[in-house]
């Protein structure tokens, strides 16, 4: 079947499935809408959490980032998984026992303060919107790359789908669609990875192939790398030969920077409201503990495959591109070409460099993710350390001597003493997106990648939108604005609050869609923002609420204020005002400031709380009660 037809079929079928599930799992009460009635099986919740957690960036970009950074990519791999250990042991079981709907619920009740509650609501909204804008953009990009529709149309389509199942189904609908989305995205991610591993190393599991040996010898442009060389050794040797200062398996970033970034990502992960709230949906405290383990299991399947994909992708670029004749490699296949490829396959040879096998290169060149500037005019592609040309590729609209897209940019000279000059600029996303084509997999696998990327983006967007809507309808309207001053309870009925929650979700989707169509231009940087803020605000304030019975309202508010202000100001100064480092203190990177702010939050909160009155007795009793599992029961609104 035609590729386009297959993509429409896969994407259409997956969308129909999500909407079908949403209709089946329609929310009937606020408890259904906020926490899926509190009756979700821990394994199911783990799977939904995994889909919620893994965003378009995890699916499309992470392998490319790790591939580009080599060992320095570790901070992201460990940071975004290690946070689940903190979540399982320090947060999830106690918050489940607390038994309310949202994170601001906990902050407001534990610190007996509507100021603290409101600060928490503002944090939730800010963190979630920065994050969701990136997801809607991701939806648009997948649509535009795979379905050849305009990015904006893609965003609107994505909004419509999320609208149906998030507004209708609430947390209940989202949970079960996320299970389906996890299945789609993990299959889409692992199938090409397994085939790549088989082709390069002969090992079925990418995690094993990562440490395995290459099946086929190749010429890296300087020397022949023999078959039987370990994948990572082949990469390190080629990096050395091609002029890279640091081999793939060694780090450039300082130990201190890596340390701070990893802590910020871990604490941020554990403090992200849309992740925490998923652990309110399981029936018991013991389910919350083990559910975090299931979530990490499902996440680790992708996260342990990812660095292998990164290494294979990097190796493939050198192996398949180096000194290959562009015109021959990327031409339309003739009958002879196909016969030759089939004969080579039967003989157990590597076909990736053969004539007409590089059509993927031309395809992605056409979409602007790969550019080639034939600097030495030999018609062959060279790949090495250093830039190929200055600035972003400016296409002239004409074709060059070999049939490549011509670029008018000024070429960058090859560094002195380097044997090979780089001619290729590759977008990092290519490491995942082009894999099925590089591995010569059937068209349906490419269609699956499109459906998988959309599943990753939509599942995360839906989880975030739900958190935004519940913090508005439940925390802000129910517990602050429409609070009955005599009883302290909400004046809204359950039906009214459910209506408000749906309305808030609808408005949030419209805003997210607007941000997706008109991205603020710094989507990548604001992700560091979201994690830094979560690490500096929610993580310490919740830990203190559980583990420090003496922690009071004054300490919590002072801690949050200091943590948030410090992170906010430092990131704004160092990312947006002057990225050159004028405002750096102790040479701390903006990505690591969340860690420092978290430590300062803990210190300030401790001293302020000890200098002011102890929390009232009923609050201290509440802390005692959340430490003991028995009696968790169903989560309740009041």
């Amino acid at each position, binding site marked *: 079947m035609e590729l386009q037809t297959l993509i429409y079929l896969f994407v259409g079928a997956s969308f129909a499935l999500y909407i079908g599930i949403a209709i089946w799992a329609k929310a009937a009460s606020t408890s259904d809408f906020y926490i899926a009635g509190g009756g979700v099986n821990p394994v199911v919740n783990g799977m939904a959490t995994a889909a919620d957690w893994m965003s378009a960036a995890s699916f499309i970009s992470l392998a490319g980032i*790790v591939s580009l950074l080599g*060992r320095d*990519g*570790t*901070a992201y*791999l*460990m940071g975004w*998984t*290690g946070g*689940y*250990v*903190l979540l*399982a*042991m*320090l947060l999830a*079981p106690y918050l489940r026992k607390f038994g309310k709907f949202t994170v601001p619920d906990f902050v407001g009740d534990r610190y007996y303060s509507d100021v603290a509650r409101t600060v928490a609501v503002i944090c939730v909204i800010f963190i979630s919107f920065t994050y969701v804008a990136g997801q809607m953009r991701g939806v648009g990009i997948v649509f535009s790359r795979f379905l050849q529709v305009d990015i904006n149309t893609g965003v609107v389509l994505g909004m419509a789908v999320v609208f149906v199942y998030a507004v209708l189904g609430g947390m209940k609908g989202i949970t079960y669609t996320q299970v389906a989305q996890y299945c789609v995205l993990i299959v889409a991610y692992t199938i090409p990875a397994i085939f790549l591993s088989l082709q390069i190393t002969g090992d079925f599991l990418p*995690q094993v192939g*990562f*440490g*395995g*040996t290459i099946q086929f010898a190749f010429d890296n442009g300087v020397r022949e790398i023999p078959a039987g060389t*370990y*994948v*990572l*050794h082949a990469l390190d040797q080629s990096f050395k030969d091609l002029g890279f200062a640091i081999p793939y*398996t*060694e*780090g450039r970033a300082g*130990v201190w920077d*890596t*340390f701070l970034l*990893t802590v910020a990502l871990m604490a941020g992960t554990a403090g992200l409201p849309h992740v925490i709230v998923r652990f309110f949906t399981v029936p*018991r*405290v*013991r389910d919350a*503990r*083990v559910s*975090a*383990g299931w979530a*990490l*299991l499902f996440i*680790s399947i992708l*996260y*342990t495959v990812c*660095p292998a994909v990164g290494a294979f992708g990097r190796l493939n670029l050198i192996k398949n591109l180096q000194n290959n004749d562009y015109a021959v490699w990327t031409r339309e296949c003739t009958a002879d070409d196909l016969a030759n490829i089939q004969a080579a396959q039967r003989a157990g040879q590597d076909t990736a460099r053969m004539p007409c096998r590089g059509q993927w290169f031309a395809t992605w060149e056409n979409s602007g993710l790969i550019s080639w500037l034939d600097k030495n005019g030999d018609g062959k592609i060279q790949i090495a350390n250093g830039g190929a040309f200055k600035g972003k590729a400016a296409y002239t609209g004409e074709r060059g001597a070999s049939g490549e897209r011509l670029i008018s940019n000024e070429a960058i000279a090859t560094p002195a003493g380097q044997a090979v000059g780089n001619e290729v600029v590759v977008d990092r996303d290519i490491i995942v997106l082009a894999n099925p084509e590089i591995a010569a997999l059937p068209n349906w696998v490419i269609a699956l990648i499109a459906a998988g990327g959309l599943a990753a983006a939509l599942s995360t967007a839906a989880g975030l939108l739900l958190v935004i809507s519940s913090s508005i309808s439940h925390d802000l309207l129910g517990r602050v604005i429409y609070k009955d001053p005599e009883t302290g309870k909400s004046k809204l009925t359950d039906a009214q609050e459910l209506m408000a929650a749906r309305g808030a979700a609808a408005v949030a989707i419209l805003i997210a869609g607007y941000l997706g169509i008109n991205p603020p231009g710094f989507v990548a940087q604001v992700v560091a923002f979201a994690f830094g803020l979560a690490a500096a605000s929610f993580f310490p304030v919740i830990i203190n609420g559980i583990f420090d019975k003496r922690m009071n309202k004054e300490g919590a508010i002072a801690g949050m204020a200091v943590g948030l202000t410090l992170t906010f100001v430092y990131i704004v100064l160092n990312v947006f005002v002057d990225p050159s480092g004028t405002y750096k203190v102790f040479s701390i990177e903006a990505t690591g400031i969340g860690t420092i702010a978290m430590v300062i939050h803990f210190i300030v909160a401790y001293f302020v709380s000890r200098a002011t009155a102890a929390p009232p007795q009923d609050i201290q009793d509440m802390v*005692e009660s959340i*430490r*003991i*599992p*028995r*009696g*968790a029961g169903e989560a309740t609104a009041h």
Partner: protein
Amino acid sequence: MDEQQARAYWQENIRTIMQLLGVWFIVSYGFGVLFVDLLDTIAIGGFKLGFWFAQQGSMYIFLILIFVYAKRMNTIDEKYDVNE
């Protein structure tokens, strides 16, 4: 459950968390970040040991830690009769 029991339960809980987070810290920050170059002098198959811990091993150990924690807490809950 009297106050003394509650305190003993909480202390045992904290002890368990501290032990497991100790392992968590050593594996991730110790092996994967602080002493990665030292461990890299040891090679196991195609991996340098530090690199393996950084990009594979730490994640497997995180997983084991959570399941061990969940199981040990269930035992402790039963011992103090606070299980659900």
